[in-house]
């Protein structure tokens, strides 16, 4: 098994009408053994910007700590929060710094930019940005997730419908992956509120 499949993960972010949702599974494993079923993979950078990190869990945590540090410095200097596009460039640069000894994680970035315009993007472990208008996926279950999202996604969904869609896509994809699942976690962000929900999924 490759290093990206050591801990197992599943991440997806979807865009709706002036809102976005980012969802992850909750399993932390050591190859086939499940060690935790409440592992956090989606982190908050500021109220309107979230990052999910799939791949090796230790690199995900370290990446998150580095990013929080850089964002706090930015806040001190610029006296405002980072825009999602700027943050994506920051993540990409940080990953490419380690080009010949990379962090084994694949980030999914989701945020609300100017005029409450939702922004999502994903990257590989070396920082190649992939912007998308509809959905982005990452993790060991990524192939199943691509299929599920492709078939379930509709543009301009309202928050409730977006939540339903992303939950169904996540749960049905992780049910085909040995290394991810054991519950789900969905974060739904609109200009006025943030909803966190924990999904009841298959625990095998």
């Amino acid at each position, binding site marked *: *098994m490759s290093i990206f*499949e050591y801990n*197992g993960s599943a991440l997806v972010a979807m865009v709706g009408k002036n809102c976005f949702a980012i969802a992850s599974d909750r399993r932390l*494993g050591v*190859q*086939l*053994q*499940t060690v935790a079923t409440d592992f956090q993979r989606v982190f908050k950078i500021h109220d309107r910007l979230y990052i999910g990190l799939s791949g090796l869990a230790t690199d995900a945590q370290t990446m998150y700590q580095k990013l929080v540090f850089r964002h706090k410095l930015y806040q001190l200097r610029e006296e405002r929060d980072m825009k999602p596009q700027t943050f994506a460039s920051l993540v990409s640069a940080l990953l490419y710094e380690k080009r010949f000894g990379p962090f084994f994680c694949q980030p999914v970035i989701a945020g609300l930019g100017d005029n409450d315009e939702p922004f999502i993007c994903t990257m590989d472990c070396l920082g190649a940005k992939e912007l998308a208008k509809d959905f982005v996926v990452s993790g*060991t279950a990524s192939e199943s997730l691509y299929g599920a999202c492709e078939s379930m996604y509709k543009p301009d969904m309202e928050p409730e419908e977006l939540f339903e869609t992303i939950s169904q896509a996540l749960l049905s994809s992780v*049910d*085909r*992956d*040995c*290394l991810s699942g054991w519950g789900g976690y969905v974060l739904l962000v609109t200009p006025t509120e943030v909803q966190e929900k924990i999904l*009841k*999924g*298959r*625990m*095998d």
Partner: protein
Amino acid sequence: MLLLVFGLSFLSFFPSLSLSQHFAPTRTKPHHRISVSLNLKQRKQREEKRRMMMKLDTSGLESFSAAVPSAMAAAEDQLFAPPSFDLPAGCADFDKFQMEAKQTLKHAKGTTTLAFIFNQGVIVAADSRASMGGYISSQSVKKIIEINPYMLGTMAGGAADCQFWHRNLGIKCRLHELANKRRISVTGASKLLANILYSYRGMGLSIGTMIAGWDEKGPGLYYVDSEGGRLKGNRFSVGSGSPYAYGVLDNGYRPDMTVEEAHELARRAIYHATFRDGASGGVVSVYHVGPNGWKKLSGDDVSELHYKYYPVQPTPVEHEMVDAPPA
């Protein structure tokens, strides 16, 4: 070094052959080739090749062939003689090459199966997930194979291997019944399977099975694997989830359980294994083998079992935003 060891064992088991090697180059036994006077290097190469291509026990694959007339026996020998070919080029260490080739085909035995004997018979339980690396290929695989109405076999390892050889064992057991006018014992059935698997040892079969049944001596349970091992015992669990299942099984086992208690113990053990092991999941099937044969007790979805054993507790809300009451 390897060659020397083999050479010694060869001499000890087949003394007649080694003698005739020095005298007349005639065939004494139909199935073993005898080298005509060769120099040491050629003889070593021949012995190595012969070791690789031992005559397999193909009786399992020839169940439907009619009695062969003796005239055909010589021709048949030519047909079934193992083919000889040159070793692959640039392959200095053929043993290592063969081991590496096998490793690529080796299935990780991603499953959980268990079986145990208690006062009322044998309980056999298994999950139903088939995985290929990280991908779940199926959640509804039948891993408990019904060999005949009073014997069950479990499947762990390569699905094709297990299915084929268990069905083959069923055929052999039925033939035994017809030939001897009595049912085959669990001991006999497991020995039949173990001998077949031993003859294919080193060829990459991947089978870790338990043969459970009830014969004249009472309940019987044997563990048989593709390395050629065969063990008699009271409690076994096989597969990647077996450590987790053993934990629950060993803790709750008592020989004087009722059938209901044993059923619940087996179900719990498999459930816990599916929770912790990524390669096990799906549906828990539990069978009971009693004096009148086997009976399927239950097939429960593992996820439903989880929420039955650990119901969702409503999380206490620390801060809840409520709309202000209308003035």
